[in-house]
């Protein structure tokens, strides 16, 4: 990282630190206007450093090889595609996937944050889905927490030399589920139950999201493996250029 980038990154950390120190009062997309102002600012401040870091990571990757932009565009498009599809689930209601698993596996969590923010802004402005005030909170759940877990699982599978494709499946599957867990917690924190407080409330929100999301998370895992198998066969050069080696299989 260059000096100037380092400075900008540290600067972006300031609001996060300030928010944490101040000890702010305390759906996948949380709807517009459903979080108190303090929470909106807090989640926004926590998300900002990831966004800035991701921005620099993208620049570094593109400086290393201009053509990496193709895979980046595909990852972004994948988030666009999957988060636009409302899929019926066994509970009789619909929900949608996150699509962040692919980008997290190929580019790492911070780059995914940038891609996720683009999609969230698109949905907040044009679809009245999610919201601009809840952008920070939604970014944290969908474009930071989920991808971080995906990336960690994928890396763990790489370290242990376990089956890569199964690792990708698990990464996308658990990343998707984790996104909804974080959303439940965020909502619970803003709306603690009168009896039982935040935990009771979190369980309530999880009960709404989790059963619906489970089959969709499996679907997201399956789709992510499909697209990676296709690229392993037809785009080895592009994958290798961003550090993904298809031929090293245990």
């Amino acid at each position: 990282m260059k000096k100037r980038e380092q400075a900008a990154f540290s600067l972006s950390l300031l609001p996060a630190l300030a928010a944490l120190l101040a000890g702010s009062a305390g759906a996948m997309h949380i709807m517009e206007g459903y979080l108190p102002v303090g929470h909106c600012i807090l989640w926004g401040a926590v998300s900002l450093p990831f966004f800035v870091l991701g921005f620099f990571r993208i620049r570094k990757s593109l400086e290393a090889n201009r053509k990496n932009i193709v895979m980046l565009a595909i990852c972004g498009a994948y988030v666009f595609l999957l988060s636009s599809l409302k899929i019926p689930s066994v509970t009789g209601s619909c929900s949608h996937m996150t699509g962040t698993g692919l980008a997290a596996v190929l580019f790492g969590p911070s780059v995914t944050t940038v891609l996720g923010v683009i999609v969230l802004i698109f949905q907040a402005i044009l679809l009245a889905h999610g919201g601009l005030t809840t952008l920070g909170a939604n970014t944290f759940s969908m474009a930071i927490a989920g991808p971080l877990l995906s990336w960690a699982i994928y890396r763990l599978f790489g370290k242990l030399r376990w089956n890569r494709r199964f690792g990708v499946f698990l990464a996308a599957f658990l990343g998707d589920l984790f996104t909804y867990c974080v959303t439940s917690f965020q909502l619970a924190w803003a709306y603690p139950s009168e009896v039982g407080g935040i935990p009771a409330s979190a369980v309530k929100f999880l009960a709404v999201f989790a059963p619906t999301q489970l089959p969709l998370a499996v679907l997201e895992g399956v789709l992510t493996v499909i697209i990676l198998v296709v690229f392993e066969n037809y785009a080895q050069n592009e994958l290798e250029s961003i550090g993904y080696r298809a031929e090293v299989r245990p």
Partner: protein
Amino acid sequence: MKKKDGILLLFLILAAVALIVVPLILQRGADFSGSDDAGSDTVGQIDQGYTPWVTPILEQFLGGEMPPELESLMFCIQTGIGVGVIMFFTGRFVERRKQEKLREEEKNKKT
């Protein structure tokens, strides 16, 4: 494409279709509403009388709820952008591999 990968893909695609179709069969007659809305409803249960303190920018612009047709149009545009970009590049990748193979075969013939 390697044959083994082809079989795996076929199996995975079937699994994906099954994951979407099975809920429809299990839950016949359900309304399949969005779970994001269910989240908002749960907020209403926990904190009765809560009203959102801002309305989405588009609803302000339209002066009310977005008509369902317009909403589905917007979702389609989003899907379209995603599919368009992915398929454009995938098509190029596949065609490129084909050309590479053709060229290799020609080279082998000559030598």
